[in-house]
């Protein structure tokens, strides 16, 4: 964990698109790579993945990155090393497993094997398997370009509820995309924790994070 400079906080739409095209499709492979080699390190894969996104979102320019997969692996490796070095109790076997992984050439990322159409089709299948109301709000917003206010009017619900549906949509999609999809490309109920919009406990609600003032 480190603090982020205020100057790099803004993530441009273009950078978000770059991340969507080059990093998101590689994320399941990155997680598999981490799990296979980091089991002994006691490092949380989510932490590493988020650090990697932070590095890539904070870069001045990504045009120079010719091989996103190799870059991802390099970022992930240095994040793991930093985490291990900062840990109070350093586990020797963790470094040993890192040595082992340094010797291994990162194989070609899966991104280049998955064509753009395939990616879009998978995302499409994921959107269509979102819970009914969430999917409707999400489709009205993303496909038909209605504002959240217009969606609220059309669905006869409050704007806050629409915002929650959009939030839930992003959260479920993020989870499904990060961990890879089922063979039919759907979001299975078991793999998605429904914490949040609908299923939050009273306690979660009272301590819930307030994104408003």
């Amino acid at each position, binding site marked *: 964990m480190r603090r982020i400079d205020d100057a790099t906080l803004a993530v441009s739409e273009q950078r978000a*698109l770059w991340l969507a095209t080059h990093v998101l499709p590689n994320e399941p492979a990155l997680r598999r790579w981490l799990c296979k080699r980091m089991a002994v390190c006691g490092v949380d894969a989510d932490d590493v993945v988020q650090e990697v996104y932070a590095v890539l979102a904070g870069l001045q320019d990504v045009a120079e990155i010719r091989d996103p997969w190799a870059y991802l692996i390099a970022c992930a490796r240095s994040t793991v090393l930093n985490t291990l070095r900062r840990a109070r109790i350093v586990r020797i076997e963790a470094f040993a497993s890192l040595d082992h992984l340094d010797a291994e050439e990162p194989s070609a990322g899966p991104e280049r094997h998955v064509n753009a159409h395939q990616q879009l089709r998978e995302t*499409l299948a994921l959107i269509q398997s979102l819970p009914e109301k969430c999917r409707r709000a999400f489709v009205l917003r993303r496909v038909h*370009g209605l504002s959240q206010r217009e969606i609220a009017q059309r669905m006869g619900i409050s704007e806050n509820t629409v*915002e929650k549906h*959009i939030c839930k949509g992003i959260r479920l999609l993020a989870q499904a995309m990060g961990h890879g999809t089922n063979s039919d490309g759907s979001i299975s109920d078991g793999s998605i924790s429904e914490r949040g919009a609908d299923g939050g406990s009273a306690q*979660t609600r009272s*301590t*819930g994070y307030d*994104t408003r003032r």
Partner: protein
Amino acid sequence: MTPDVDPQDRSAVAAAWVAREDRGQLEAGERGKRDAWLSADSRQFGAYARARAVSAQAARVAATMRAAETSHENIRVPRSVRRWLRSFGLAAMVAAAAWLAHMLFLATVPQTHEYRTSRGEVLRMPLPDGSMVTLDSATELTVIYTPDRRGIRLLRGEALFDVVSDRARPFVVSSAQATVTAVGTSFSVAAPQDAQDAVRVLVREGRVDLADTTDGVRQRVARLEANQTAAARPGAPIQVQRLQPKSVQDQLAWREGMLAFHGDTLATAARRFRRYSDVRIVIDEPTMEGRRVVGLYSANDPVGFARSVALSLGLVAERRGNTIHLRSPQQTSRGLD
């Protein structure tokens, strides 16, 4: 109102912020709060960047999804019809035979269908012979199939044709004064936007013949190969240009709801966005109109485009109703004097 998310769950909080930004501009207090959360921990910033990527990916499929929804509706058979088919099997068979006879009869007379897309919509659909057509935003065309000719009349907009090979039945697209003839190939045709504009043809695979039919006479035939583009203007020779395969893909980026720019002028880029939404981009700084832009943008997000242009050219993007003004920062101070 508080989104019910666990503050410990960085992905959930990040999604809540992205959904909040999607709702509308953040107030100063909210912005401060968001920035404080983002800067406190790089993993939180990373989770936010990731949620933004997911949102951007969803925007990319928007066009694909719209097409899928439409075709899905077309093939769905109502439950009542299915029940009817089960209980009246024989009657259904007779009906099917009658329908087949009807279709065979239809095959001998021209079949005419009209297709159109509204602004911001991209539609991909099969034609009767199995060829595929992809209509760009605000496009209108008529399909006229006869036993010896597969005809398309492009009335406005742009479309990509992936043509199934059939030597006995040429595939002919006509628009304004130009006709494009193919046997089996993949190419796009853009109708002229006004009387002075050209019909533009882009060949992705195979080859096509382009003819100028001003005054009803076929003349000046040009043969186009893969990765070539041509412009046919009334009363002017056909201009053919060779393109890099990458640039052909970029020019067809609209199929995925995207617009690609490779050194186009800012004025051209702003004009292209007009086909996809009601939001207009106006360049108030005349010296900037000729500046070149590079990048891949979501076709339905002129605001995002204007914002990144403003950022990279040191301009200010200001939205007034359905118009986004791009102007230099000095213009404001002059306005305030």
